[in-house]
């Protein structure tokens, strides 16, 4: 009780905290004793080669996989995430590529998919969609996030891949997400479109959202991440501030799976200068 109060008072307390997480498939450890946490207004890049355990860790947060050992806390309180619905209810949202939007309906309808607003009509005889309010709130949401979508009554199919990705992310924000998990949000996008998505991630950080970013793109990571976590064959390799590493060191650690010493700013600068 005392501890909880202390945690609540501490503004830097993580939104989501995982401790000692393990998951075994048969005799093989997909994750072994992994600690992972994300704070408010923090972008944590989750890195690792294929099979490193990134997806398993994310699936545990999303409720698609249940951990065999370990503890998860949301806002300091211990929780059991035993289903996707429970994860959603706790404010954890995952943005999957191409699985988030319906191409054949408009932007506002997508943002409100599954939670459409209704209003009484004909003196309360029937209830119809409140398109006006859904439109207004969608415009307000997009403006808040500085997302440029000129026509929210256009079908999602008419937008670029980058715009679609930003709409998908905006949808999770409207869902009052505390933690947004993005799985390769810039993959398969053009350069300008990647820029749109990265700028949105920066805006979200300013708004105080907690974000987990899975990416193979090291320049994306170096640009938007505050902290990097690397996994290799289910074990934690490193967990450090972005400022204490650089792009080449990240790649080496992902490949070798051995932690290298922290880089100070000066070191990394000289290294870069030396190249």
């Amino acid at each position, binding site marked *: 009780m005392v501890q909880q109060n202390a945690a609540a008072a501490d503004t830097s307390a993580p939104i989501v905290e995982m401790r000692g997480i393990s998951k075994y498939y048969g005799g093989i450890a997909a994750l072994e004793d992994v600690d992972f946490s994300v704070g408010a207004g923090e972008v944590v890049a989750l890195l690792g080669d294929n099979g490193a355990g990134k997806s398993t860790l994310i699936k545990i947060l999303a409720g698609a996989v249940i951990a065999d050992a370990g503890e998860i806390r949301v806002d300091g309180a211990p929780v059991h995430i035993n289903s*996707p*619905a429970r994860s*959603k209810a706790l404010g954890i949202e995952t943005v*999957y590529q191409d*699985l*988030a*939007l*319906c*191409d*054949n*309906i408009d932007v506002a*309808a997508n943002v409100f*998919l*599954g*939670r*459409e607003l209704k209003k009484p009509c004909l003196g309360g005889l*029937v209830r*119809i*969609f409140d398109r006006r309010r859904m*439109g*207004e*709130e969608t*415009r*307000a*949401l997009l*403006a*808040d996030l500085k997302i440029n*979508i*000129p*026509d*929210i*009554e*256009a*079908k999602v*199919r*008419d937008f*670029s*891949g980058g715009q679609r990705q930003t709409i998908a992310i905006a949808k999770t*924000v*409207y869902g*009052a997400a505390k933690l947004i998990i993005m799985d390769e949000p810039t993959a398969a996008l053009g350069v300008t479109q990647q820029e749109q998505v990265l700028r949105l991630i920066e805006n979200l950080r300013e708004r105080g959202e907690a974000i987990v970013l899975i990416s193979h793109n090291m320049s994306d990571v170096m640009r938007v991440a505050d902290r990097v976590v690397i996994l290799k064959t289910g074990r934690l390799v490193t967990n450090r501030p972005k400022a204490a590493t650089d792009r080449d060191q990240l790649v080496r650690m992902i490949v070798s799976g051995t932690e290298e010493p922290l880089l100070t700013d000066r070191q990394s600068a000289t290294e870069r200068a030396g190249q």
Partner: protein
Amino acid sequence: MSVLTKKAYGARGPVSLKARLSKLMEQGSTVLVFLGIILLMEVLTSGFISLDNLSLIVLQAATRAILAIGMMMVIISGGIDISVGTVMSLCMVVMGIAVIDGGLPLYLGFVAAIGAGVLVGSVNGFLISYARLPPFIVTLGMLGIAQGLALTISNGRSLYGFPETFEFFGGGTVLSIPVPVLILMGFALIMTFVFYQTRLGRYAFTIGGNEEATRRAGVNVRAYKLAFYAVVGGTAGLGSIVLAARINSAHPGIGFGYELDAIAAVVIGGGSLMGGRGTVFGAVMGALIMSAIRFGLNVMGMSPFIQQIVVGVILIAAVYLDTLRAARLRHTTR
């Protein structure tokens, strides 16, 4: 949430004129096709265009249009129901037995017909959404089952002797508009409301567009899918009432073949068998086009055997055009 606070965001974004225009073109094109067929028939058989002929086409289209509107719901959701024709026969026979043999009042006969349709449709929907069987196979099986049931419970006979008031629903007029057409108009209005103002209609579109996204948004996709097939079943019941009233009798074999017309009407009217697209107006226009073609072939003295071939060819051609349209849409995307 701070996101919800209202601010002065410009009234409306620029609505793309091109999108509106192409939508109008698509809807207008079905009207043009319909008028083209009428004109062609006039050229081939002079004196085709008359008030009698036109109202007969519309009257015959009523049953097809009702079925097509229901069919549209499953087709938009990415499914299909090829059992509607024989289910309509079953509903008709159920109503005939309830009213003629059982002596129940007419309105209870209507309830029985629509209820039987909803029940059969729910079985289809359950097998498709909960047992995860392919819609084509389930409704193909149901096509046979409904036909067999209709023949069994009627002993294969036609039923005559509906109360006199029944004729009103097939041949009567209100303000000189035939009652079947009024029923169709009412049903079309209700279904337009369902498609654009209710979750049932909205989720038919989103499930057809991206089923996984709809599921992830927390929608009970299975329950909605079941409901779509229940609606088509109920539609077959409504269609059976209109058709039986027009011939003032019930026949266990009359519905077979209507599924082809209904599916063709949906596709001709701009619906896509790949799901996610279609309009009530389009389905009604598609049914009118099918009726005009059948009526015209009759007037030209073409045998019903040949007509079957023509309808089959039209269905395949319409679906082919739909695949071309879908390919074009994919190309223009992104």
